[in-house]
């Protein structure tokens, strides 16, 4: 399945991009995907520091992915 991944803040710095579309096996979990991307881009944020958003809404790490989903890993926020 194709997943669009969005990168923000330090994740975007490390990935040197703000988004990309990748193809992953159908039963890939969000945690597995982050582990793979973390190794690839040397992200310095562990998964337990991140929240996930699926299709522009907050989701859970345990949520399943579907073909065409937009997935974002949300670093600690700093608004206000």
């Amino acid at each position: 399945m194709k997943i669009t991944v969005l990168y923000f803040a330090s994740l975007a710095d490390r990935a040197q991009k703000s988004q990309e579309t990748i193809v992953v096996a159908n039963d890939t979990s969000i945690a597995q995907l982050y582990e793979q991307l973390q190794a690839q881009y040397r992200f310095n944020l562990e998964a337990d520091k991140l929240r996930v958003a699926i299709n522009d809404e907050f989701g859970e790490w345990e949520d399943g992915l579907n073909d065409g989903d937009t997935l974002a890993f949300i670093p600690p926020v700093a608004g206000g």
Partner: protein
Amino acid sequence: MIINLNEPQHASPLKHSVDEAYAIADNQGFALLDTPLDAERLKGMLKREDCGALAVFEGWVRNHNNDNSVSRLTYYGYENLAINQGKLIIEEACRLFDIQKAVSIHRIGALDIGDMAIWVGVASKHRYPAFDACRWILDTIKADIPVWKQEYYTDDSTLWLSNNG
């Protein structure tokens, strides 16, 4: 706090125009904007004849954060998630507090010292719910809205900040 090693490759500019952003804030309660915030325009959304109280919070860029001298900073946001989550926050505030209407907007992009980064306004019949809801909305935005802040210091270093230490 995370040291920023590289030049940023961040998300594209906002999808909505300035007028669209104000309309979203008016209708749904929250939006992001990449131009200076117009406090009077936002306040105008809250004028109601049945309200006696308006509580407003403005967050300004300070010249210091902890022990560091800040020269400027840049806010980045995940616009679609911010708008969706902001709508939920304002809906929840209207359930939790006896208020008539609440509106907030967060600025993103490059800001200078003294610039307004966030505006939160709440109108209610009586004064305490306006104060309580305004503070709750601000706290919840700071905890939940996907906005990131990169500070530039007078020694040219930069940091990604976090509201949670």
